[in-house]
């Protein structure tokens, strides 16, 4: 999985799968990692999928995440939902932060 992801990232503008889908990686932290039972997953989606649609899909996969107030990012920047996903993008889904 990791190798495939690296390849996708290297070939940023080249479609890496035969059916025209792109690969993205989704990271989880804290309570969302507990809800997903994973630290990250790799997903395929059509090019240009809005980040908000991807979040809805993730909530379908992991309904327990809906119990939390969630924030999410695309490529290490907070996302609003309208961001279009590209091959090799990295999303992260997490609860309101609690550092300090």
């Amino acid at each position, binding site marked *: 999985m990791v190798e495939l992801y690296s390849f996708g990232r290297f070939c940023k503008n080249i479609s890496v799968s035969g059916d025209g889908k792109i690969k993205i990686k989704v990271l989880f932290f*804290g309570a969302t990692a507990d809800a997903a039972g994973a630290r990250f997953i790799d997903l395929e989606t059509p090019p240009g999928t809005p980040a908000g649609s991807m979040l809805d899909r993730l909530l379908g996969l992991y309904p327990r995440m809906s119990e*939390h107030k969630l*924030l999410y990012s695309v490529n*290490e920047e*907070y996302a609003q939902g309208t961001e279009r996903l590209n091959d090799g993008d990295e999303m992260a889904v997490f*609860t*309101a932060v*609690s*550092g300090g």
Partner: protein
Amino acid sequence: MDLVELTNDPISVESVARRVVPPECGATVTLDGYVRRFTSGRETLYLVYEAYKPMALKEMRKLVEQAKRDFEVSAVGIVHRLGRLEIGETSVVISVAAPHRGAAFAACEWLIRELKRTVPIWKKEIYADGEMWVEGESAG
């Protein structure tokens, strides 16, 4: 001069504070945030912090830049600890150096408030009878 770090090792408060001492400055205000034993009457045994490290470092750097734009301060150091922390151990140090202290106090207060709102770090409280990921207010 500025300093932004995440570390799994104990933080030396003094070494953060004294790395942020520009020649034009006359005061450094340093916040030493540490693990509280009692929160709302409930006893914490220890804490575990985790971070989305590359994004956390980016957000910390943004806070440093904005503090230097919005306040009359010359240099900022922010170091946050990750992993398991015992009661009383330092979890975060924020040092702000300024020509005059007023701006440093104001910037330090702004920085810790923003850090707790925007920097992707989470803490898990471990109690005698359970554990819980703490969820913050909101990044709005």
